């Protein structure tokens, strides 16, 4: 059924149609509507789940880990400071191989206090082993929650479904909330092989020395690598059932492009308009949207970028002391390729600064004009 809903509610409805069994969450702007709607859905039994109103995000993720370990499908949502507080327990979910799905509204980190969007909160979780999906529309937010459970539960790793603060979280869009029967067909019940069960008692997470730990980490990497295939397969299957197909990356007017613009989240949807206008002006530029950041789609990146003339990456984040994080990852994916293009790494939109079609066109035009990237970090729109 088509509804006009905000991104936050798309997360809640995504959890509902995924038939989550346990929710543990703590409110934070701009995520609050996620927990408010879930509370209502649980209260009026539209969703048959236990909702633990924990006293912190750290406890939220710890409770999710516990619930997941007994075999319950488990969901939480947070943002920025809350995600940072969860950090230890995100590692716990990964190491414990617990497929919790977590919605994160991208909000810049304090201080100074701020509530507007950028990606530093989620990207700071880069090395945990939690999958990261960056959505560009409310529809994609809802669809990705369902897909994330399907992928996570097969590889036994948690997933993060990420949306921009306000640009999606508080913006209403038309969203098709699919028929429950169809969702049930797509997403079978969670049925893990090993659970906390007194009839078959196992110890989870017991003391492990250098002799076993290494292999357990190897297994995590193996699983997350395997998720690349799964994300594309389950995204295709999603398309067949629901008419909306998803993959690790999305191409837009890329086929004949000499210059490739790379973006994620809502900047990517704004970029489509910029690409249309630039192509009308006769410029050979196309867009590559990175939807999944972990696992990183290195193979797709290589396949799509080798032999292009130039690449411009937009980062709404910064790894202090190095630069834009997507740009770094793309550079490292290409490093061993023969005919790799030069990469312009632009930073813009930090802390929720507006990124318009004009800004994006300027970025592309600057890239066309300059012979090579003058610096590792190309700041756009800093007012000093």
């Amino acid at each position: 059924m088509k509804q006009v809903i905000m991104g936050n509610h798309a997360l809640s409805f995504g959890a509902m149609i995924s038939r989550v069994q346990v929710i543990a969450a703590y409110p934070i702007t701009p995520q609050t509507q996620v927990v408010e709607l879930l509370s209502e859905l649980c209260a009026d039994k539209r969703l048959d789940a236990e909702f633990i109103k924990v006293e912190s995000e750290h406890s939220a993720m710890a409770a999710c880990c516990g619930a997941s370990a007994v075999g319950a499908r488990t969901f939480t949502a947070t943002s920025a400071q809350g995600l940072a507080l969860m950090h230890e327990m995100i590692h716990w979910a990964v190491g414990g191989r617990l497929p919790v799905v977590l919605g994160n509204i991208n909000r810049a980190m304090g201080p100074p206090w701020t509530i507007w969007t950028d990606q530093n909160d989620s990207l700071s979780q880069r090395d945990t082993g939690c999958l990261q999906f960056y959505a560009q529309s409310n529809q994609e937010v809802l669809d990705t929650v369902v897909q994330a459970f399907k992928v996570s539960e097969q590889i036994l790793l948690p997933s993060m479904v990420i949306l921009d603060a306000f640009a999606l979280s508080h913006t209403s869009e038309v969203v098709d909330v699919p028929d429950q029967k169809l969702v049930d067909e797509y997403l079978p019940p969670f049925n893990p092989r090993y659970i906390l069960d007194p009839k078959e008692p196992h110890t989870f997470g017991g003391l492990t020395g250098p002799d076993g730990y290494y292999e357990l980490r190897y297994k995590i990497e193996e699983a997350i690598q395997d998720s690349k295939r799964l994300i594309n397969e389950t995204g295709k299957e999603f398309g067949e059932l629901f008419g909306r197909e998803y993959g690790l990356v999305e191409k837009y007017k890329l086929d004949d492009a000499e210059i490739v613009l790379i973006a994620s989240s809502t900047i990517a949807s704004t970029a489509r308009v910029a690409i249309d206008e630039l192509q009308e002006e006769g410029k050979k530029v196309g867009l590559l949207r990175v939807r999944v950041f972990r696992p990183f789609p290195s193979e797709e990146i290589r396949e799509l970028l080798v032999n292009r003339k130039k690449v411009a990456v937009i980062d709404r984040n910064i790894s202090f002391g190095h630069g834009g994080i997507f740009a770094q990852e793309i550079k490292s994916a290409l490093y061993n390729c023969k005919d790799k293009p030069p990469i312009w790494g632009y930073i813009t939109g930090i802390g929720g600064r507006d990124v318009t079609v004009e800004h994006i066109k300027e970025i592309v035009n600057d890239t066309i004009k300059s012979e090579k990237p003058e610096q590792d970090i190309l700041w756009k729109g800093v007012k000093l």
Partner: protein
Amino acid sequence: MERGKTMKLSIPEEELVLQGHLACQGCGATLCMRYALKALGQNTILDIPACCWSVIDGPFPHTSVKVPLFHTAFETAACAASGIRAGLDALGRKETNVVAWAGDGGTFDIGIQALSGAAERNDNIIYICYDNEAYMNTGIQRSSATPYGAWTTTTPVKHFKKMPKKDLVRIMAAHRIPYTATACVGYPEDFIKKVKKAKEIQGTTFLHIMSPCPPGWKSLPEETIKLAKLAVTTCYFPIYEIENGEKYTINKVIKNPKPVKEFLERQGRFRHLTEELIEKIQKNVIDSYNGLLKKAGLDLEVHVKE
């Protein structure tokens, strides 16, 4: 005589803690688990944060308990238990006991926020804190459960602990949870009775168990039970319970307390104490015990006979 048939046993025979665990000799925490699991039975899930018990259980793939065990992060004993409970309830497995099992550090200090959260929500979990009065797993550092006067590696003799032990039982009672109790490995029947009682209660139950630790207390392993009993008979660690945050019952009333010195002098961690300081501790112990007697509505005041 065939055991159990002609003799009525006061402690269940079933052993759910096996040989081969990694505890030190005379470890109170291990006895504590042994008794607790006897009372809880097989249909139990344990969750344990960082503490000696994350080592005692044994290295992967070994385990020394016969119930499922979920190791969790240091500050998350209570909330991980809440999650396990919610998961079981969602799956209709309501009969299984969920037990958060933590040391004093994980309970009084880093885990108190999560514990308070679970207690305020009155989540249906049993929280058992074995108290050895310091962070033993990391090598005997002070916690807020370390008593006045004690040496630890972070309260060296010259700067021994100057603050009293945090009164966590009162904090828990202030949450008005259905059941809060103290017990001691020196009195297993009382402890087992309390665990069984907690098991029957819906809501959060909190058990605080005095558990001697020979390396941490600098005491003799063979004196663990003696020390545990002395903790009670000197009134250093009274055994009592609080129902709904209000109704106090002292389960073992000590009418003629032994001098606390008898408890202190057996432990190297108190060796530096002067007579004057011991007297100060003695006065505090008796004052707070008399306070407790009052709360329990007993018309009694005790003092130590010279």
